[in-house]
């Protein structure tokens, strides 16, 4: 058994806690209450309260493993390439669909995120680029719940929290190009692709502003925790892992159908 690191353990505890909170929210402790919510649920279905959302956001991505791997790759080439980018925070995009019952929304979320890195060097003889591109395809289930607090001067503004968990599929592309200036020397290219899936949890706070009776804007701010995906790229570098851990800020437009 591979020993879990402390960071992984923390993430594991957080994800389980959030899942238990969501589960606890859905659990009735008294039959009367259950019966009341069952009726409300039936009303909601009858009233077709379905919310669809699209959002953009911004996130930071840990990618600590790949950063080390990149350094190792560069040392293999022996070229003193200079970093141009090193897995920077980058926009993310997503859509979700949810239904509301009582004062909570429950739904599914799909999100696309990417980041990458480049180190390069060029002179009269050649140009060298070493690029990583990582793409994350996140599919999760979430629960939004308002906490009922409002500002007196902006009563339309609602606050709450979001708890989301699910799986994230990572696609990693590495490409190194060494293009020589003398045409008689053949260019060199190295491409590596890898893919993996792991579990994640993403808790966030939300602030919602209604635009119309059926639509609103929502700002989420939270953190993304995941189990790092293990990758084996080449025998020249040790096995590494990719983690999308980092902050998430999302602006979400939601339309109630």
């Amino acid at each position: 058994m591979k020993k879990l690191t402390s960071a992984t353990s923390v993430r594991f505890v957080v994800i389980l806690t959030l899942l238990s909170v969501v589960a606890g929210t859905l659990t009735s402790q008294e039959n009367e209450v259950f019966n009341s919510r069952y009726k409300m649920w039936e009303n909601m279905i009858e009233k077709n309260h379905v919310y669809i959302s699209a959002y953009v956001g911004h996130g930071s991505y840990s990618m600590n493993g790949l950063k080390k791997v990149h350094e190792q790759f560069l040392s293999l080439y022996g070229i003193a390439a200079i970093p141009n980018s090193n897995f920077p925070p980058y926009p993310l995009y997503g859509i979700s669909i949810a239904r509301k019952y009582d004062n909570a929304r429950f739904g599914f979320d799909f999100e696309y995120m990417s980041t990458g890195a480049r180190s390069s060097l060029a002179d009269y003889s050649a140009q060298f680029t070493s690029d990583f591109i990582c793409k994350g395809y996140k599919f999760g289930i979430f629960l939004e719940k308002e906490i009922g607090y409002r500002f007196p001067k902006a009563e339309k503004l609602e606050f709450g929290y979001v708890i989301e968990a699910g799986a994230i599929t990572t696609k990693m592309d590495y490409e190194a190009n060494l293009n020589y200036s003398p045409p008689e020397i053949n260019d060199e290219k190295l491409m590596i692709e890898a893919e993996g899936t792991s579990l994640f949890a993403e808790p966030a706070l939300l602030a919602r502003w209604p635009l119309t009776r059926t639509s609103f804007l929502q700002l989420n701010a939270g953190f993304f925790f995941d189990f790092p995906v293990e990758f084996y790229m080449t025998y020249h570098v040790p096995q590494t892992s990719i983690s999308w851990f980092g902050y998430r800020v999302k602006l979400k437009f939601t339309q109630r159908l």
Partner: protein
Amino acid sequence: MKIFYILLSLLLFTSCTFEPDGLNYVEIEKPADTHPMEVTLSIDRDSIYIYRSTNFSYKINSNGKKLNAAVVKYLDNEIIMTANAENFSFYIDKPNTDNTNKWFDLTIDFYVSTGSGSIADVVKMENYLMSKTWKIQFVDLQNAKLKTGHKIHPDGYLEVYIIKPSYLEGKFTCDNFGIPIPHSRNSGDTLFFADKSYVYGTERYQMTFKFDDNQNYNWYNWSFTVNYPEIEFKAEAYGPDSCKVSWGNSPFKLYYNLNNNLYSGFDKAYIVPIMVNEKKSFNLKINSPNYVNETYSREYKTTEFIQGTQTYYNMCYSVDKDIFFISSNESLPYISSSGIPIPKSENNAQYNSKVNIYCSPNGKYIAGHSYLNIYIYNENLTLAKKIPDIGLDYNYRPYFAVTNDGAFTYQHRNTLHLRNVSERTDWESFSFKTDLDSLYTNIYLSVIANSIDGKYICVRGLNGLKIYDVSDHQTARVAYTHPDKGVNSFVAHPTDPGLIYAVVNGELQLRTCPGFELVKNIDIELADYKIYTIDPYSRILMMWKNDDLYFYDPDTGQKLLQLKSNQLWRQQALLVRNHLKMANNTIDLTQYLQK
């Protein structure tokens, strides 16, 4: 709110997927187009012979630049050396048969870093290229036909040599059936080995090569034969009393030892005195000068010599017909005639007869005898009559003679026998005893003589000399008596029946027969001699004293020749037509008996 929408728009305009961009360009000075370099191969020649799997390395002087790679190419092989290329070495093994013993190229491309520090330089793709080519030939020693040979050193000994292939490093050795032949000298690529024991004949030499690295499995052999002709060892007449023993003319300087130090040295011939009836054997030990003290000689040759012509047969001579009659076959005795030169005995049955034959001076009558039989031949040389069991006792020189009237006279103890071998029928035989000796006394040598006409027989015994008249072939009448014992030998004149040569009181005299009157004294410088015989052809007297033979002209008393013999007085030798016929040989003395 406006700010919010602006931010939202910016996010939407952003590319959905992160795209790395940017390029860090650095200015680096380009290196020079050329760079001086030198390469030395471990076998530093342009054309290289190799003889087995050979390791090559090289030294490159790149003047401060680093060797990135070297690419070795030969035949269908290509070896790329990148890691630690400066210290790399490689082997070239034996190629396939088609490429063995042929030149092929070895090319090495050297890639030397420019040292510019550029990206291409860092990844070793920017290099100075130097290409160099050598010619290689793999010589298959196992099947190589190396030139070998031999010659004679100016000092006179044999040298065998092998021409060593160029640059073949190792040791050549030479042996002669396991006997090592020492290496003597080098001349260029030619290695010489001196066999100072060789004298002649067929010898096989084997050259062996072995590499220097003590790898016992690398042995290569070349064999060849040396064959100088054998030395001809021969003996030939050198005058009538010597022979010349010679042993050819060898190209080598050799040391000879004749008959156990009779002669030893470097000469090619030696003169050896020899007696007329002596058959002498010679042996010659042949050695090179370096081996004269060896117990066993390198070569050993033998020969033998006897003066004149080998004539084991018996013969007689008719002076009137000037012809020789030769006894040929004992079991069926017959004779043949011969002129000059007389035939040489062969090792067959033709001339092995032991029948002693005698003929009359006129050649009309021929008779012979063996131990017990008398043979009488016709004039056509066929056997006419065999008279058995005559019972002769042999002494040293039994007397036999055939006279011109056909009387075969022979002696048995003190009795003389006469047998008719002619066509006459009025007598057959008769015998008479002399009173000059006792019954069993052997009559001394050369003391009986028939006159050639058969009328008289002169006999000398212990009691004196008598001449018998046997002309009627019935009785022996004493015609002359000489009591003086001073007549020690005599011989009838070969052509005049009225004369006789006698040694009287030590003087050679010609006397009449039967009167025994002195005709003349013949003055010769000799004493204590006896008459042996007289040549009816040349009328030269042969006398003997001890073992010496003397040849005198009785007309002048001149000594013509003196020879040594080996107890020839024991034999019935003949001197006929200047030929001295002995038991085993006949010497033609014509050139020495010139009056």
